[in-house]
């Protein structure tokens, strides 16, 4: 799921209505979250990128970020895949009997994320015996998430610890499902970043600025703004957002 390693984000808390997700959201020890699980949180690195690679932070006159916190950023290792990665590869059908609203099954689902990638992908997304991935950012080519409409696809990625996908383009149902579940940010790049990044590169995504930084290569990329989908994902999906903004009644606990 989309987590924030923001420097400070007082509005970003684990909403009690976010009943689907029971795992730690942020590695910063200063933010206490009710549902922090005991599982070791690998993906995000809690310190900011090394100063020599730190790009100049854009000023307020840059891309308007009214819909998403301008301090939201993700930092970690990236895993790179190519074009037309279909949802059977993201989460094969045999695992779809796992129900994501059950915490232990949600976790199990995450452990199978991208297990369907053929053996030509020698570096596996999740190490054997692990249940989350050390890669928190997925970089892909065209038509990511094509094929079946299974919502388990973005859910498995989120459960595995993916904060965001940066793809050249998405299949529409996968895109909708990512937003509706709030599990991952489906970001779009302007160029073929999958050809410029390698698995294991250290990257930062500055969400508010729609910027991708590859610290390993020193290159930066502009992405298409996530726009109004941002608050929906940040809230934890359309139902959480609808409750948060008063559009539908809060769940009586």
């Amino acid at each position: 799921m989309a987590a924030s390693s923001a420097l400070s984000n007082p509005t970003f808390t684990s909403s009690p209505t976010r009943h689907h997700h029971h795992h730690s959201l942020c590695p910063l020890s200063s933010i206490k979250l009710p549902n922090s699980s005991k599982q070791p949180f690998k993906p995000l690195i809690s310190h900011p990128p090394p100063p020599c690679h730190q790009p100049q932070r854009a000023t307020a006159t840059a891309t308007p970020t009214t819909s998403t916190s301008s301090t939201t950023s993700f930092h970690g290792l990236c895993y790179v895949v190519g074009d037309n990665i279909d949802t059977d590869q993201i989460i094969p059908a045999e695992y779809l009997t796992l129900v994501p609203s059950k915490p232990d099954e949600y976790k199990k689902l995450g452990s199978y994320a991208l297990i369907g990638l053929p053996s030509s992908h020698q570096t596996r997304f999740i190490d054997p015996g692990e249940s989350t991935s050390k890669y928190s950012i997925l970089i892909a080519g065209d038509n990511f998430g094509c094929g079946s409409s299974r919502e388990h696809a973005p859910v498995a990625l989120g459960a595995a610890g993916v904060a965001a996908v940066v793809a050249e383009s998405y299949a529409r149902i996968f895109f909708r499902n990512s937003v509706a579940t709030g599990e991952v940010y489906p970001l779009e790049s302007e160029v073929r970043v999958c050809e410029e990044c390698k698995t294991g590169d250290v990257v930062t995504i500055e969400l508010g600025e729609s910027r991708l930084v590859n610290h390993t290569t020193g290159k930066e990329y502009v992405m298409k703004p996530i726009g109004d989908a941002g608050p929906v994902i940040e809230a934890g999906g359309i139902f959480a957002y609808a409750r948060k903004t008063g559009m539908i009644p809060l769940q009586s606990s």
Partner: protein
Amino acid sequence: MASSAVASNITPFINQKDVGLSAFSSQSCFLIQNSRRRISKKIVSVMAPQQSERKPSTTGSKIFARASEKPQLGPGENVWVNVDILMTHDVWGREKIVIIPEHYIFTSDERANRNVDILRDFCTEQNIKYFYDIKDLSNFKANPDYKGVCHVALAQEGHCRPGEVLLGTDSHTCTAGAFGQFATGIGITDAGFVLGAGKILLKVPPTLRFVMDGEMPNYLLAKDLILQIIGEVSVSGATYKSMEFVGSTVESLTMEERMTLCNMAIEAGGKNGIVPADSTTHKYLADKTSLPYEPVYSDDKARFLSEYRFDVSKLEPLVAKPHSPDNRALARECKDVKIDRVYIGSCTGGKTEDFLAAAEVFLASGKKVKVPTFLVPATQKVWMDLYSLPVPGSGGKTCSQIFEEAGCDTPASPSCGACLGGPRDTYARMNEAQVCVSTTNRNFPGRMGHKEGQIYLASPYTAAASALTGFVTDPREFLQ
């Protein structure tokens, strides 16, 4: 216009509406933006269309316009759309909801079985009229309500009607476009929203037009036509777009063949596929639905994003080679590919006419298959047809008899079966790295089970021909 209607309801969050609109390529966000106003199902007055200003528009735009109670829409507009039918098998108007369990049915996997129990509890609690339940897994016939593959069942039960909006929690919901309606797949959370609100926010798609003319050769089926198209535009060529199938050839197709055509629109990334309703449609529906419907048609001067024209008389039987539905090749050029098995089934290729087609090839050959040949009828009705309908030119034999004589496996319990792999004990699942010719819809790595399995997508004619030789085979070897 949708966007201006929304403007008055902007929440404080989103005051850069235009930036969001143009930069954001999906419609989901506006779902929330509008819901404060739109969540009630009250019908607001319909504005009378201003005839002098009305531009020619496509079928898709017109269905959306009617369902969103707007005079007219153009591609790219984000609008709230009233939903006529929501189909789901993953779990507003109780009669507008159709729940059809068919994935992972005949398995001992506890979680799979649990899914059906959860659906049953929900339907009982909510008093859902159309729940095609199954309890006795050992004998599908003992379940009077059980239907089988949702997309085929929807059609057979009369839930598909021209001019309507149908959503389903399965990517092949686009199959229903064969009935001249807008039908598309959505995720379960989106469906949850529809269950509560009866509406969904959708972007009006631009339309790609595929004009198919010419007499359909006797060795070609609709599956070959759609494989031709997908090979032409690629697996992402129709992303976010509507695919309209017209032309004299399309008009000559039966409803089941039109369903095959629209079924694989998603494989080109299409939002939906659509075939204009005509007398064939009306005849099919005559004994299946008593609900009134009003077909919708593209205007003559409607603008399409692109138009593709095919002379069908010049086309040849095709396959989609591993591992992509757009990896198009002529079946005859793959004749050296040795195969291990053949699978005939699924919403794409497991309908009654698909089996009749396969039977036609076996009949013409008179020989036995050289590889295990799995037959999985899509629904109970299809299964019954296999055992009762006489095959033309056979002297009164049924499909099941012809299949038996050819040495095929006994037709299995109707379901999606191994099209998508599923639990390990699923019938005909590919548990080893084998080569399979299949009448199904996807051949991505691992689709039918084993990651190294090689799937050649093909028509029932080509599948049957291949079963007889043990190699990928052009059906003209048997059909003169």
